[in-house]
């Protein structure tokens, strides 16, 4: 049997993400002062293969490859990596990769479970809005994924300082303020992206089906996710829910993102788009 090139590149990317995740986790427990960059380099290699996979699928299908659960979750983890690299090179935070790569790998792994054949887009989806809508939605979700990983880092570092028992991680993790600011920055990035994604989605729904909003489960859960992040931002700006509370909220928010993404499609079986 001949392996299709795009499948080969997908498997390569998945493998490298796996090794990057393992070496990232090892790095957390390694008693060295300097954080090694192995996990980051492995994830970059994986990302290159992943990008080739996405380009090949794009060429073959003629549209952004997000038309099936397999493609959508693969594209989701790819978007997280883009944000991860930007933040890694801009802020050079110790151990960021150890907390982001597990998320990337798990989403990529779930992508590998879904059927991989290339689907033909239904005419309703062949719209100008389709591309804009999904790119905005995925970048927004990627920002929330990053906020979640950084929220976990915050909680660990906060535990370190509060408990007055400083582990090796105390040295390696960034300062609380840095983590808190980044968490805030990512949510202020993700929220408008999600808002725009919903607006473009509504416009597109109208042009495709003639109604703006149909209370389909995906729409409802997206709205719930949107409301949660709206509350996170509101509480932060008015009563100062920062630090620990903001970190916990950003983790909860991401659980909703994941449920909206996988849960709604698999459990609630909405009519929404691709599947």
């Amino acid at each position, binding site marked *: 049997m001949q392996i299709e090139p795009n499948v080969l590149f997908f498997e390569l990317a998945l493998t490298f993400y796996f090794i990057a995740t393992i070496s990232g986790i090892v790095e957390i427990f390694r*008693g*060295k*002062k*300097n954080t090694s960059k192995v996990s980051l380099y492995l994830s970059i290699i994986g990302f290159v293969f992943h990008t080739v996979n996405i380009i090949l699928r794009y060429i073959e299908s003629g549209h952004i490859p997000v038309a099936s659960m397999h493609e959508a979750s693969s594209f989701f983890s790819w978007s997280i990596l883009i944000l991860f690299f930007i933040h890694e090179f801009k802020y050079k935070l110790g151990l960021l990769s150890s907390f982001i790569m597990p998320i990337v790998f798990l989403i990529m792994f779930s992508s590998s479970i879904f059927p991989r054949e290339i689907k033909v887009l239904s005419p309703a989806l062949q719209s100008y809005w389709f591309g804009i809508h999904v790119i905005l939605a995925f970048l927004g979700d990627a920002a929330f994924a990053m906020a979640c990983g950084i929220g976990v880092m915050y909680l660990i*570092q906060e535990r*370190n*300082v*509060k408990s*007055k*028992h*400083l582990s090796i991680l*105390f*040295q390696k*993790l*960034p*300062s*609380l*303020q*840095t983590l808190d*600011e980044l968490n805030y920055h990512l949510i202020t990035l993700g929220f408008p992206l999600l808002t725009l994604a919903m607006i473009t989605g509504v416009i597109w729904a109208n042009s495709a089906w003639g109604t703006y909003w149909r209370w389909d489960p995906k729409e409802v859960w997206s709205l719930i996710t949107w409301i949660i992040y709206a509350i996170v931002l509101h509480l932060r700006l008015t*009563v*100062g*829910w*920062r*630090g*620990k*509370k903001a970190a916990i909220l950003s983790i909860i928010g991401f659980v909703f993102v994941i449920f909206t993404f996988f849960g709604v499609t698999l459990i609630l079986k909405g009519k929404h788009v691709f599947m």
Partner: protein
Amino acid sequence: MNILIVGLNHKTAPIEVREKIAFAGPKLEEAINILKKSNTVKENIILSTCNRVEIYAGVSDMDSGIESIKDFLSEFHKVSRDLLDKSLYLHKGTEAIRHMYRVASSLDSMVVGEPQILGQLKDAYDTALKNKTTGVLLNKLMRKSVSVAKRIRTETRIAASAVSISFAAVELAKKIFGDLPSKSFMLLGAGEMAELAARNLINSGVKEVFITNRTIARAEELASEFHGKVVPFENFTNELLHTDIVICSTGAPHYILLKEQVHKTMKERKQKPMFIIDISVPRNIDPQINDLDNVYLYDVDSLQGIVDTNVQERAKEAEKAEQIVDEEIGSFLKWHASLAATPTVVALRNKAEEIRKAEFEKTVKKLGPMEEEKIRAIEYLTVSIVNKLIHPPTAALKSENNDKEAMLDVVRKLFQLDTEKGKDEET
């Protein structure tokens, strides 16, 4: 030539003795130049810090080397030989190499892992280089020591964490706030440890400083020292609104800051984090304050706990470092042994003979069948050329000579006698 270290440090001599033996400023250059003129001390470097004075020397004879260095010290500083004999330690040969490595990598320091000593050692070496008091032996030893120290720094966590209360406080502040220059801090009360911590914070960049004290005169005194603003003691709680770091050390017998007050302040601050250090005994700040979100309260015991853990960790790391020192001594000894005349002469001869033989055989092969007599003649020719060529260098190496070790080093490099053993590992 052999390596000798004569010195004293905080373990062998009290400050009263150390300050007598110290070489301050220009005295250091004067001293190494006097030592340079000695007949037995061929090379020398002097390190003089507040915790130690050490003379690193390359001597032609150990016993007379020790004598002349002691004589020199006693004359230069006008101290009795008795006092010197009581305080000085001696390290010879292999032990001297070990000591040098341990000093450079801060294993011999009062606070193990402190970073200044390497810089001080480099300065001492620079001064020696400028005055040309070193030679091939100490140059190699010094460069090797620096690279050993660097290796230990990267391969162990010996200098990774704070080992004093005031530094532990700064380290925590950095992990809570990230950048300190944009933060403000308040010194509540006074006291040696509190002032030390305050000074460390200011050195780390904290700019805005509030000072408050029951005695207004004392507050003003401290304010001028730290370039801070005096806040009346009665309403210091109001000022907490703009304060990120508090160091508290008053003599009050009760809590002067309660949970409700901080809770209220935190609301007004919109939960901007606060780091409170309570150095006072009895404690002046309600320990329950640590339960509030975004407030981090440390008392003397919790800071001491961190310091103790760090000290233990350093001790553990120091063991790893000693192993590295052991390994590295071997490589220095190997180099030093190669500087003896006999192995160098043998190596040189072997190398020459190897080349001669190879070239001779190649030529004979090329010329084809020939009379035995002619082959002999050619061989004789090659042998005599080689012998004539290597005779002067081997003779020079065998003779007694002042720069013998430098010469050996040069010969080994010129004729590439060490190439099979790999490159020189110094960096």
